[in-house]
């Protein structure tokens, strides 16, 4: 992972999910945003960025790119990501929401083969408060500190960050892995990254119904994480029958428990791992303070 201010960052495409304000914010935060790729606009300037038609042209001019932020129309995400992979970009953040799941299946096959880290789709990206902003996270809710946040929701990520900031708990790194049905990186991967991160002293995990990423993370916490972890699961009151675009329901016959993917299953997993679970976002800081001492 290269999350330092000197890592070179590219933006592919511009859509409703990224505005001039976001780009200005990233630059003000010290992110080394070198260029944008917007087919058909090559040679122009957009939002004070030099624009190219192809990713390979950017690499030619600026050398290897560390991270790309993809904001194209959801139907063009697969193509944009494959283009980035072809240009050897190893960190891809997909801001666009609503990417067709079969496109994601195709992209993940490719990414896994080349060990490319994919965050999103439907993610506001990553922020290392005080250092670098990769995506659209509103930086005003953050302060530098030692709590790592990993979340599956976008808005809820800032909600939690802001609660922490108000309680005097700064953040080391905050990532939203995306809330589409199929996303690139998992909670488990991020627990590993946060565990290895020296500035991170405690971790907040924000989950929601669907899939089994939270359960896997809970098992991993028991096995490998010594840092204090506090969890929050949204949707515990939501009806369980609703599977929230997680179409894995039919495949639950494959040796899976009947409550697979429900908030209840996630709560039980954290209980089994002795991870305190907050009732509401405003309670997270309280639990965290208890866990740290």
């Amino acid at each position, binding site marked *: 992972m290269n999350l330092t201010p000197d890592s070179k960052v590219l933006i592919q495409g511009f859509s409703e999910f990224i505005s001039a304000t976001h780009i200005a914010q990233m630059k003000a935060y010290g992110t080394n945003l070198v260029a944008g790729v917007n087919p058909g606009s090559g040679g122009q300037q957009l939002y004070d960025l030099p624009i190219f038609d192809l990713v390979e042209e950017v690499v030619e001019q600026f050398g290897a790119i560390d991270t790309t932020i993809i904001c194209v129309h959801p139907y063009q995400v697969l193509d944009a990501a494959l283009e980035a992979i072809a240009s050897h970009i190893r960190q891809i953040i997909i801001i666009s929401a609503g990417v067709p799941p079969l496109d994601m299946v195709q992209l993940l096959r490719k990414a896994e083969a080349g060990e490319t880290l994919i965050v999103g789709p439907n993610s506001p990206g990553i922020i290392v408060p005080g250092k670098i902003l990769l995506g659209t996270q509103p930086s005003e809710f953050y302060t530098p500190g030692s709590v790592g946040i990993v979340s599956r929701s*976008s808005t809820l990520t800032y909600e939690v960050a802001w609660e922490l900031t108000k309680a005097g708990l700064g953040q080391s790194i905050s990532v939203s892995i995306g809330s589409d049905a199929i996303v690139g990186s998992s909670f488990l991967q991020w627990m590993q990254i946060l565990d290895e991160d020296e500035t991170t002293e405690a971790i907040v995990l924000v989950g929601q119904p669907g899939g089994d990423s939270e359960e896997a993370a809970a098992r991993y916490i028991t096995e490998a994480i010594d840092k204090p972890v506090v969890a929050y699961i949204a949707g515990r009151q939501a009806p369980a029958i609703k599977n929230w675009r997680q179409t894995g329901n039919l495949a639950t016959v494959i040796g899976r428990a009947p409550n697979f993917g429900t908030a209840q299953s996630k709560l039980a997993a954290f209980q089994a791992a002795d991870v305190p679970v907050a009732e509401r976002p405003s309670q997270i800081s309280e639990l965290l303070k208890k866990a740290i001492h």
Partner: protein
Amino acid sequence: MDLLEYQVKEWFAEIGIPVLPSQRIDHPTDLKRLKIHYPVVLKSQVHAGERAKAGGVRVVETTIDAIAAAQTIFNLPIWGELPDVLLAESKYDGQEEFYLAVVLDTAVCRPVFLGCKEADVDWESAGERMQHIVVEQEFSPFYARQLALKMGLQGQLMQSVSSVLEKMYQLFVQKDLDLVEINPLAISNSGQVMALNGKVSINERALGRHPKIAEIVAKMTSRHSSSQINGHLSNWDGLDMHGKIGILGNGTGSMMATFDLVVGAGGKPGICLNLRHAFLTDTLPTTFCDRLTKGLSILAADKSTQVILINLLGSIPQAEEVAKVIAKFVQHETSELTSQVVTTNSNGNKSRQQYHTPHVVVRLAGSEFNMAKDGLATLKTQSNALVMVENLDEAVAEAVRFTKPVAAKKRSATR
């Protein structure tokens, strides 16, 4: 969203999955011009399951029987749904019946083949009899053969079943589906395979690149505008809990957290919508403001909505536009109420309770919203319909508070 059987079978036929000769029946008299031979099976085209048990499937031997049966089926609601069309299909005698499916498993992020040598699968205990193969890499027919062999099939039957699976997969990918199911796949004495019934679930996220499917969906949604079709359409990317507090959030997590908080504070959530995506019925690209406008009108149109709780936090495009949309909504709703009160007062025959103007509680936070907040704050003085709060817990408390006194009044009125 699920297609009807006759639509599924059209797709099966196009891609080369064997289906019986059949004919779409829009009216009982269509049976006079039947091109297929008797005995014929008439099937009600509804989304509801268990239609055979409910009497929606009849075998008929003659035209007279067929017309009578069709009249009955056309008037037989199944789980509240009346069929628009019937499917008349040749009768088929299978020796064996299998279950086959391709489904996208979001937990392993891959398509999965499912197969069982029984058609009436009991999902509770299917574990051991249901075989599956994960399509890990690019599809190749060997995945289909793997499943057929795992199901215990051999020789020619293994080949013909895997060829059906292969076509199911092609359909799955070509049309961006969540599920393709054949239940049952009948096997004749001679080992011939036949898809007797099938199910297809469309992925709404991909509708925009399948104009023909979007057309089908548009027709279905316009016909079943209320919460019909097994909830397949209405609760997509949202919830409808019939409570008094409608929720608009920007993201699934945010919407659900707000939902939980409302329940925790003793309130009853109503329709909850996620504004981060386009709605299912939007076939053209939308902006956040379009979705906010639409979300507000959906909530206002629901008579049980007494309060609309909007929870927006940072990173919303067009913050100023958002404020304008909210302001317009509040002012419009209020002026509409005033004009209605005036008209009905002159008629004097309608009671005041018939209008409902939802209170709007707006929770806004973030630097981009500062300007928006100022704009809305001036509105606040003109009407008490709008409340602005920055703290989420407080916003929820406000929203719940609005529903309480009214509820008390209603109770005393019915006493």
